[in-house]
């Protein structure tokens, strides 16, 4: 198979994956820093390179509403947004998931206002984590491309929508080496469009979006919960098949030099890449450090994460969002909860970092490893919640 090597930004990579997927409908509203995804894709529509019906909506709320309508009518549907756009979609996110519509959003992680900011953090997708959408975070342009392709297939396997995200500007606007698969290979990998139902199939009429009160709402939600559990199997199957066909396998997480590690950092997105550099540096100095990168945040792989992490002495969870819970960020809570059943519960601390695009450097990550080392040596956590690089 001939892969094409090009230089593309995260936004260009996701737009390229969308072109190859060739959805029936894309309804969208532009927002920094995800504007390019839709802009580039609308170019593909104008040039006749896709068969997509493109709906330029008047807001993100309308855009996702149009996506819901199109998916319910039996179409393969995608869109793209960021930050305030995802927040404006919030109401409709639950509807899309509740109606079991396998829509895919190419999302760019940008801080939610206020104060207003256009740069990277994960507050937007983390605020949507309970909406019933799968969430896949990408370290770089290549993963953004690979994840978009896989997300479409996973979503249609379990009839749940999926968000694929990249870090604002750091990935969305950074040009990197990208390997693109042949169009026909991508299309055959995703396969025939699987739809939960088809409103336009007049031979089999159904009711959709009807009032669903005390008598059946809970049963429908129970099925949705079960679908998210099934999504775990689908994520693994699709990630494995992707590896067999195209060379790079994907799972819930990536374990980078975790063999024999005493201490580990957990990160999502581009910071995982920066952490790898630090792991290499510290390993060369004899420190037993590793990186655990979470790729799939929804569904959350509690069991698998417990198994992978319970032997570690001290773990630092990097959160690029604070849930305003007064006790740390969302990834921290999930990781801690995963390890509750473990007999060997590691020490776990939380590091909130990078809000509103505050840069994180290797020296910051090295400091985290040194603090974890101290925790492992002294058997004591001084500060449960820490903030990297903030003035206070």
């Amino acid at each position, binding site marked *: 198979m001939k892969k094409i090597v*090009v230089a593309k930004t995260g936004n260009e990579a996701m737009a390229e994956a969308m072109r190859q997927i060739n959805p029936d409908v894309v309804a969208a509203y532009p927002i920094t820093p995800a504007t390019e995804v839709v802009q580039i894709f609308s170019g593909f529509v104008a040039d006749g390179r896709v068969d997509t019906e493109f709906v330029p909506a008047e807001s993100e709320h309308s855009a996702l509403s149009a996506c819901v309508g199109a998916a319910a009518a039996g179409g393969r549907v995608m869109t793209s947004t960021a930050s305030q756009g995802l927040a404006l979609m919030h109401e409709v996110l639950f509807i899309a998931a509740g109606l079991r519509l396998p829509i895919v959003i190419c999302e760019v992680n940008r801080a939610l206002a206020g104060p207003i900011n256009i740069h990277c953090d994960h507050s937007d997708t983390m605020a949507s984590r309970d909406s019933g959408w799968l969430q896949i975070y990408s370290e770089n342009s290549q993963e953004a491309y690979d994840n978009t392709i896989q997300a479409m297939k996973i979503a249609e396997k379990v009839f749940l929508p999926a968000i694929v995200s990249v870090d604002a500007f750091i*990935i969305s606007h950074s040009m990197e080496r990208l390997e693109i698969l042949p169009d026909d290979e991508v299309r055959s990998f995703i396969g025939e469009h699987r739809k939960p139902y088809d409103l336009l199939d007049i031979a089999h009429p159904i009711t959709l979006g009807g009032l669903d009160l005390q008598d059946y709402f809970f049963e429908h939600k129970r099925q949705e919960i079960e679908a998210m559990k099934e999504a775990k199997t689908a994520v693994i199957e699709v990630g494995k098949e992707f590896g067999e066909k195209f060379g790079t396998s994907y799972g819930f997480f990536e374990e980078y030099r975790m063999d024999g590690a005493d201490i580990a950092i957990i990160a999502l997105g581009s910071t995982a890449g920066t952490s790898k550099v630090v792991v290499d540096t510290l390993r060369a100095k004899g420190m037993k450090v590793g990186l655990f990168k979470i790729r799939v945040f929804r569904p959350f792989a509690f069991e698998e994460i417990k198994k992978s992490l319970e032997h570690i002495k001290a773990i630092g969870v990097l959160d690029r969002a604070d849930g305003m819970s007064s006790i740390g960020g969302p990834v921290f809570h999930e990781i801690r909860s995963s390890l509750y059943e473990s007999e060997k519960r590691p020490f776990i601390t939380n590091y909130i970092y990078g809000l509103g695009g505050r*840069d994180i450097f290797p020296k910051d990550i090295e400091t985290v490893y040194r603090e974890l080392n101290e925790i492992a040596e002294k058997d004591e956590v001084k500060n449960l919640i820490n903030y990297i690089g903030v003035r206070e």
Partner: protein
Amino acid sequence: MKEIFEIRWHGRGGQGAKTAALLLGDAALSTGKYIQAFPEYGPERMGAPVQSFDRLSDKPITIHSGITNPDIVIVLDPTLMKSIDVTDGLAEDGHLIINTHKSPDEIRKEFNIKGRKIATCDAYKISEDTIGKKIPNTPMLGALIKVTGLLDFEKMLKDTEEKMQKKFSGRPEIVKGNIESMKRAYEEVKQE
């Protein structure tokens, strides 16, 4: 050679600092390197100081922090040097390549620069002669390659020509002018 080469471009909004970083990244990719090219994002105004960046390596690049200690700094507008310390974070043995008609020695004295290897190239004059406009970014690419030997110049010319032919199809004079400007800068850049 260092594992990762880091480059910072200084320009003014509209001068093509971002395009230069992207062109260099793309050309480096075509010679088999791993690359990153990214602009600094802030309020964008024509004429305001802007920066853009490249990372080049023979191995995959996983770091995604900003570049604070570049190996090479390129200045597209010499007047920037009056308001910004373009040597900030630049390695002691790093390259400083400036678009100016002055000599490296004159620049060193004028701005009291210690260490670093200074090179100068009159990219305004070259681009006016070859492209017909003051567009310093493509000639400075030629100067950069001459000074650092980062890439094979012939390969880079060929790759840039192909990319520009796609972008400016039907306007061959633009492609020709840009390629010529790179060649001239490659020949004319003054080094210490």
